[in-house]
């Protein structure tokens, strides 16, 4: 969409705080996502990874802080999922990206349907485009999947493929992936990682949230470590092996245990 525009970071968060009642989920978050990079976001359960991306994509409003998209500040009162979509930011969730009982073509377009001015959907056009995405962008050939297939009949890997393909179709500059490989079979995981690499090849950026360090390590350009709502480290995969990374994260946890003892 705004690919030609000059900007340094697609998204930049400055001093973002998020409270849920008295609980602080995010503390002083400063993070910038540049173009054409895959940023891995790692950390233990409750570190604030999901909250961070919800804030970034307009699903949750931050308690304090500033959000810049393409170096321009966003009015947080207006920020919503739809606005993030308009600004070419797409999110792919592990289990919340597609509606189970609805056909694929509706899942591709819901929330931004192709309609006439009375709001009636151009079904033929939507199906054509969906067909195109399915065959070419995602590369599903054969396998019996059509635009009329119901999501419930698809495997986990196919669902992730569809969700990522949809994000790419909307020309997202930034695709945020929230644990896309959880509960997938090994073969399916490889498919999803291929999709993630394809995001970068097409000149886009991605934030990749993942529990499985080996998966992030394979695809990320840099990894940002969150701990108790704070960014505590940034690591390049070439500087740290998966084993070292694991030990580092374990050490973080033990540090807490030691402090609270």
């Amino acid at each position, binding site marked *: 969409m705004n690919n030609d525009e000059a900007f340094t970071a697609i998204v930049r968060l400055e001093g973002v705080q998020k409270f849920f009642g008295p609980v602080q989920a995010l503390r002083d978050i400063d993070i910038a996502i540049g173009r054409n990079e895959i940023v891995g976001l790692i950390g233990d359960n409750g570190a604030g990874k999901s909250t961070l991306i919800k804030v970034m994509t307009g699903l949750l409003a931050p308690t304090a802080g500033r959000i810049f998209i393409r170096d321009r500040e966003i009015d947080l009162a207006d920020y919503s999922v739809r606005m993030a979509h308009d600004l070419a930011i797409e*999110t792919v969730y592990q289990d919340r990206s597609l509606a189970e009982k609805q056909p694929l073509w509706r899942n591709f377009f819901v*929330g931004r349907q192709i309609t006439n001015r009375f709001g*009636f959907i151009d079904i033929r056009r939507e199906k054509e485009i969906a067909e195109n995405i399915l065959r070419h962008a995602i590369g599903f050939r054969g396998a019996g999947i059509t635009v009329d297939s119901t999501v419930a009949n698809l495997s986990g890997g196919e669902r992730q493929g569809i969700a990522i393909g949809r994000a790419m179709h909307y020309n997202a500059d930034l695709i945020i992936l929230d644990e896309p490989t959880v509960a997938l079979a090994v073969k399916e995981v490889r498919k999803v990682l291929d999709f993630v690499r394809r995001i970068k090849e097409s000149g886009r950026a991605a934030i990749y949230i993942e529990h499985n360090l080996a998966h992030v390590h394979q695809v990320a350009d840099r990894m940002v470590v969150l701990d108790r709502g704070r960014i505590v480290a940034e690591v390049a995969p070439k500087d740290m092996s998966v084993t070292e990374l694991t030990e580092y994260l374990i050490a973080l946890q033990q540090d807490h245990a030691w402090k609270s003892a």
Partner: protein
Amino acid sequence: MEKRVTPSLIARIEGLPIILVFLLLLALFMVLAPQVFLQPFIYTTFLSTLPPLILLAVGLTFIIGAGEIDLCFPAIIAFSGFVFAVLFKEHDLGWWAVAAGLASGLLVGLVNGILVAKIGLPSFMATLATQFFWAGMATVLSGGKSYALRGAETSPVWQWIVGRPFSGTDLPIWVQQIPLQSLWTAIIVIALWFILNRHRFGEHTLFIGDSNSVSRVLGIDVETEKIKLFTLMGGLAAVAAIMLTLENKNYFGNQGQGYLLTAIASVLIGGTSIFGGRATIVGTVFGCFIIGMIEAGLVATGLTGAWVRTIQGLVFLTAMIFYLYVDEPQRRAAFMARLTRFQRPGRPIDTEAKGGLRR
């Protein structure tokens, strides 16, 4: 390679199973009570008595399709019916009475929507509570009185809403009996079919029914759409109330009572999923026909009215079991496996694994 479920004939024609059941019942009644069911008059009677039920059930199809429930509409029939009747009869306001009745229904629906979407009450609780409130309000304001609208048939309101346009002509008597409310109902139902299946709002309704959290992530304004849904239901209930009051030429406080369970049953018999995410208006309309026809048909075949509820319950139960097996392929597979296990050993059907994938 995995086996794919291709859409069967049942899936391709909307409401096909229920249409078949309807035709079967119709044929049955034609055989058992030919003196009634081979004459046109029973059908013109349906045209005058079924529209309120159909309007309510079609509104409920949206609500249930969105994974919610509305128990309040019988009270809207009482309350909006009262607002209309008192303004029409006591104040002689004509079309203004119709507008006020409609507005009162929309308002009650709007309040329901706000209670569910903004306050966050489960719709079952919210509408159960408002059902008591508005039914009580209608009783308080009317003082428990009924309003007889004698002579209403000379008013343009009556003639335009529930009139008999062919009455007094040379056409056959059954044609002279065709009531206008059947035309208005058909127009509203067809418009709502297009909205559910072709409009952004209908798509949002079904996605919300599928999952609220997925809908939010996809950028649907779940709260606003839910408020619209309940407001729509309120408006339809008000139209039903006005038709009912005019058709009976009488308002009484309990006039909505019989509709609660029959409307819900019609929607579910029609094939709309109680879990939300899937809804069929064609199915609902035929569901209404079936519910209405059983009532008239059983009496015509000589059974007492006491049997009506029993048979309706049986049809309802059968329909629910049928949909359970059609909608959930893994259950159907398990059922078929039970039937065919002995003929086909060595081909176990892994129903557990398939069921485990669905969340």
